[in-house]
C-alpha cells in the first residue's frame, strides 16, 4: 500500500532543479507531485513520477544522488476539515509524520505522507475517510 518517491540530493545552485526536470522531460517521464526541503547549502527534492525505475536510471546516469523512499499516497475529499480528521487519527495512534505534501485536484485532495512507522500508519488510515493508493 505504499508508493516509491524519488529523493534527490541537490546543491543550492542556480539551475540545478532545472537539470532534473529537463532530464525527466527528455525521457518522457511525467512528474505528478514534488516538494523541496532546503537547508543553507543543499536541498532534497522529493518527487513522485510516472516511471520510477526509468527515472532513477536516467538521473543516476547523469550523476545525481537519487534514492527511493516509501511513502503513503492518499486522497481525501477536498473539503474543510477532512485532512484534520485524518491527522487526528494518526496523532492519537502516536504516528509521527516526518514530512508531507499535498495538492488539490477538483473535489479530491492528494496527500503524500512519510510517517515513521509506515505499516502502522496504513492500518490507521484504513479506518479513515480516505483512499490509499497502491500505485500511480
Amino acid at each position, binding site marked *: 500500500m505504499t508508493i516509491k518517491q524519488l529523493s534527490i540530493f*541537490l546543491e543550492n545552485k542556480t539551475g540545478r532543479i532545472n537539470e532534473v526536470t529537463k532530464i525527466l522531460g527528455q525521457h518522457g517521464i511525467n512528474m505528478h507531485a514534488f516538494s523541496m526541503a532546503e537547508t543553507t547549502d543543499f536541498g532534497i527534492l522529493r518527487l513522485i513520477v510516472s516511471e520510477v525505475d526509468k527515472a532513477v536510471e536516467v538521473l543516476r546516469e547523469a*550523476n545525481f544522488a537519487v534514492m527511493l523512499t516509501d511513502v503513503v499516497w492518499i486522497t481525501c475529499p477536498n473539503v474543510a476539515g477532512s485532512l484534520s480528521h485524518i491527522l487526528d487519527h494518526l496523532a492519537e495512534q502516536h504516528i509521527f509524520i516526518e514530512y508531507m505534501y499535498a495538492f488539490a485536484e477538483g473535489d479530491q485532495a492528494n496527500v503524500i505522507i512519510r510517517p515513521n512507522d509506515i505499516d502502522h500508519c496504513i492500518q490507521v488510515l484504513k479506518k479513515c475517510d480516505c483512499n490509499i493508493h497502491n500505485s500511480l
Partner: protein
Amino acid sequence: MGPGVSYECEVQDGSHINEDHFYPEIIHPDTLVQLPHGQQGELVFTTLTKEGMPLLRYRTKDLCTLYDGQCACGRTSVRMGRIIGRSDDMLIIRGINVFPSQVESVILEMPEFEPQYMLVVDRVNNLDTLQVQVEVRRDFFGDDIGRMLNMKKTLADKLKSVLSISADVKLMEPGSIERSQGKGKHVIDKRKLV
C-alpha cells in the same frame, strides 16, 4: 627565528635584514640551489650570533626576493621583498597553520564522504574564513535532512578538534568537485594579500 631579523625603514621599499646577526640566502625550493639576489625563491636563514640554539640554513618556506644596493634611506643592508607565497601547501588562517593533509586525514576517516575535497579560503570583514567542500558518497545520501545535517556537524566538529579553527562544511553532490590529474588541487585562496 624570533624578532629583530629585519625591519622596514621610512621608505618602505623592502625590509632591511640585520645581516650582522642573520645571514640570508635565496634557494630554489626544489633543487635547493642557491639563487643570486634579485631572483625569487625560498628564503633561508643562518644565525651568526645565536649560541644556545643556532640555525644553519633554516628553511622558512616563504617565497620572496632579496635586494642588494643602497636604499633611498641611505642604509646598505640587504632587503627582503614582500612574501608572495609559500613553497609548501601550508595555509595561515587566522594566524593558525593549516595543512590540507590534515583535512584530508579527517575526511578519509569518515566513510560518508568521497576522498574529494576543496578548501576555500576567503577574507570577510578582515577575518579569514575557511570552507571545506566535501562530496557525500551515494550510499550515504539519505532522504532524512536531520541525518544529513548530523553528518555535516560531525565533520565540522572533527575538523575543529584537528585544526583548532572552525570551518564551514559544505556538503556537495557526488562528482561535483573537479578531479585533477596527479597532484590534486585542494585549495582556492580568494584572499587578497596586499
